C-alpha cells in the first residue's frame, strides 16, 4: 500500500458553518488521505502552527463568512513565519470571482466555490500533495 498523504482542514475566523469542511474531510478520508481537522473558530496562527507540527502535505481552508480575503493570506503568512512557505494552501467558500484572483495572487494554490464537485477538489489536493 502506498503512503497516505496528510492534509489539514481548517476553518480560520469565527464562522461556525462546517458542513462543507467536514464533507471534504470525510471525502478525502474515503480517498485514502489522512485528515487532521482542527475544528471551527481558529486563528491563522493556530492553523499554521498545527500544520507545521503535524507535518502535513497540504492545508485546506474554508470560510463562509466573507472574511477570506483577510484570513487566507494570513494563514500563508503565518506558515511562512514558521518555515512552512513550501506547504501549499487551498481554499474554499463563498468567494466571488474577483476575490479568487486576489487570493491566487496572494499564494493560494486553488480556490473552490459552491457547486465544485468533490472529485475536482480531491484531485487538487492530490496534485498539491504529489508536488510535496
Amino acid at each position, binding site marked *: 500500500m502506498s503512503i497516505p498523504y496528510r492534509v489539514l482542514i481548517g476553518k480560520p*475566523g*469565527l*464562522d*461556525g*458553518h*462546517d*458542513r462543507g469542511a*467536514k*464533507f471534504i474531510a*470525510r*471525502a478525502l478520508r474515503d480517498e485514502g488521505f489522512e485528515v487532521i481537522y482542527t*475544528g*471551527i*473558530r481558529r*486563528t491563522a496562527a493556530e492553523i499554521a502552527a498545527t500544520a507545521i507540527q503535524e507535518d502535513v502535505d497540504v492545508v485546506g481552508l474554508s470560510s463562509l*463568512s*466573507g*472574511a*477570506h*480575503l*483577510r*484570513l487566507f493570506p*494570513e494563514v500563508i503568512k503565518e506558515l511562512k513565519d514558521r518555515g512552512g512557505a513550501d506547504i501549499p494552501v487551498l481554499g474554499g467558500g*463563498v468567494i*466571488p*470571482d474577483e476575490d479568487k484572483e486576489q487570493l491566487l495572487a496572494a499564494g493560494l494554490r486553488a480556490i473552490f*466555490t*459552491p*457547486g465544485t*464537485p*468533490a*472529485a475536482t477538489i480531491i484531485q487538487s489536493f492530490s496534485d498539491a500533495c504529489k508536488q510535496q
Partner: protein
Amino acid sequence: MNNNSKFNDWQENELAASLNRFPERKEEFKLHGDAEVQRLAMPKVIDEQYEKSLGFPGKYPFTRGVQPTMYRGRFWTMRQYAGFSSAAESNKRYRYLLEQGTTGLSVAFDLPTQIGYDSDDAMSLGEVGKVGVAIDTLADMEALFADIPLADISTSMTINSPAIVLLAMYIVVAEKQGVPAEKLRGTIQNDVLKEYVARGTYIFPPRPSLGIITDIFQWCSSNMPLFNTISISGYHIREAGSTAAQEVAFTLANGITYVQTALDAGLEIDHFAKRLAFFFNASSNLLEEVAKFRAARRLWARIMKNRFEAQHPASMMMRFHTQTAGNTLAAQQIDNNIVRVTLQALAAVLGGTQSLHTNSRDEALSLPTEASVRTALRTQQIIAHESGVAETVDPFAGSYYMEQLTDDIELAAEELIAKIDDSGGVVSCIENGFIKSQIEQAAYDYQKDIESGERVIVGVNAFQIEGEEKPELLRVNPEVEEAQVAHLQSVRAQRDQEEVNRSLSALKQAAESGDNLMNPIMDAVRAYGSLGEICTVLRSVFGEYRD
C-alpha cells in the same frame, strides 16, 4: 356528541371568539367566479381518530394550525433577515424594507457580536460587519434603530450566547425613545443549545448558558410580556445537514431542555411557555416539509400537555418562524434560486408558519443586493395575494400521503427524543457528540448522493450551462472594520470610565453569586460598557466552551 355538534362546537367557541377579535381580511373569499372558498374543509365523518390526530385549527393538538382562521385573518409576518456593515448602513436597509411592505425587522449581527468580541479584538480580524451588523456598545444600537419607532414594529434578533446583552441594549434604546419594555414586541433567538451542535457561536459551557437563558425568561415574564424570549431553532440543524425528522427531534429536545431548566429554577410552566417560539427550515421537498411543520406542531402540543402538564392551550401552541433553506441555493444559474425559494416558501405557508424569511437569489455568492431582497419579498407577497393558498386553512389535511408522512415524521422524531432522554438528555448528548454525529452522517449521505448524481440539483450537477454571465454582487465596504474600531474607541474615550468599571464589577459579583444578570447588564449597557467587556466578565466566571 355527533359529528356536526363537534364542528358546531368549534365554530361557536374557538372560531366565533377568533372572528370577534380578529375579523377576516375580506368579507368573502371567492374563486374566479362566484364560488366561495371554503374556510376549513372537513371530513364527512369526524371520528375519534380524526379528533385525536388533527382536530380543529386553533385547538389542541394544533396539527391544522394555531389560529382558527389562519391567514384569512392575517397573513404571516413577512420578516426579512438583514444587516451588514455598520449600524447606520443597516438602519438604511431596515427603513427601505419597511417602506417596501415588510412587517417585521430581523436583525443579523456580525460574527464578533454573536460571539461576544468587540470589533477591535484580535479574534475579530476580517469578520467585522461581514455577515451582519457590528454592535459594540449602546451607541451602535441607537444608530441601528434611529428613526424607527420601536413601539410600532416587532424586531427579531438573531443572537444567542450574548442575547442577554443585546436584549438589554434594545430595552435601553426603547427606554430612550420613551417606549416601556412591556410594549416591546419581537423575538431573541437565545437558543444556545443548537449552537453546540450546528451553528458554532457558543461562548460559555452549556450549563451556565442555560442559567443565563433562565434569567431572561424570568425577567421578561414579569417585565416584557409581549416579547418572545427564545426562538428554539431547527433551522441551523437542518442547514448543517440533518434530515427533516432530525430537525424536529433535536429542536424539540432542546425545547424540552429549556422548559425543564426553567421549571427547575422555579418558574411556572403556564407563565413562560406561551413566550417560547420556534424557528424552522423550509427545504426543497415540498410535501415532506409541509408534513414536518404539522408533525412538529402536534408533537410539541403533546409534549407540553403530557410531559409538562401545561394547562393553558397557549402553552401547547407551537408558533414558529420559517426561513427558506440557504444550503439549497446554487451558485450556478442563480435565477433558478427564485423558483426554489418559491417552492420552499409555499411549503412554509401550507405548513402554517407565523412568519417567514425568503432567501435571495444571490446568497450563494454573497450577501444579497437590494434588488434581490425585493424579489424575495415579492415572492411572499405573490404567495399571499395571488396563489390562493392563504384563503383556506390547512388545505393538505386529509390527504392520505400527507397524513401518513406527518405521522411518520412525528414517530421518527419521538423515537429520537426518547433516545436522547435515555442517554441523559441534550447536554449529555452534546458532550458525547451523539447529536453532532447524527447530523454529520445525514449531511454526508446527502452530499454523496449529489456527487454521484443520484440526487439531481438543476444547474449544478445536471442541466449546466457554460459561460454564465456574472451577476452584480453586494460588497461590504472593506473599510468598515477600521471605521467600526475607530468608533468604538471614541465611545470608550467619551464615556464615564468609573461608571463602567463599577457596573462591570457589580456584574461580576452577580454572576458569581448566581443572581439574575438582567439588571446588572442593563446598568453596564447604560454606562456604554461594551459587549466584549461584558462578555469578558462573564467568561471569567463561567469559563469558555471549546468543541
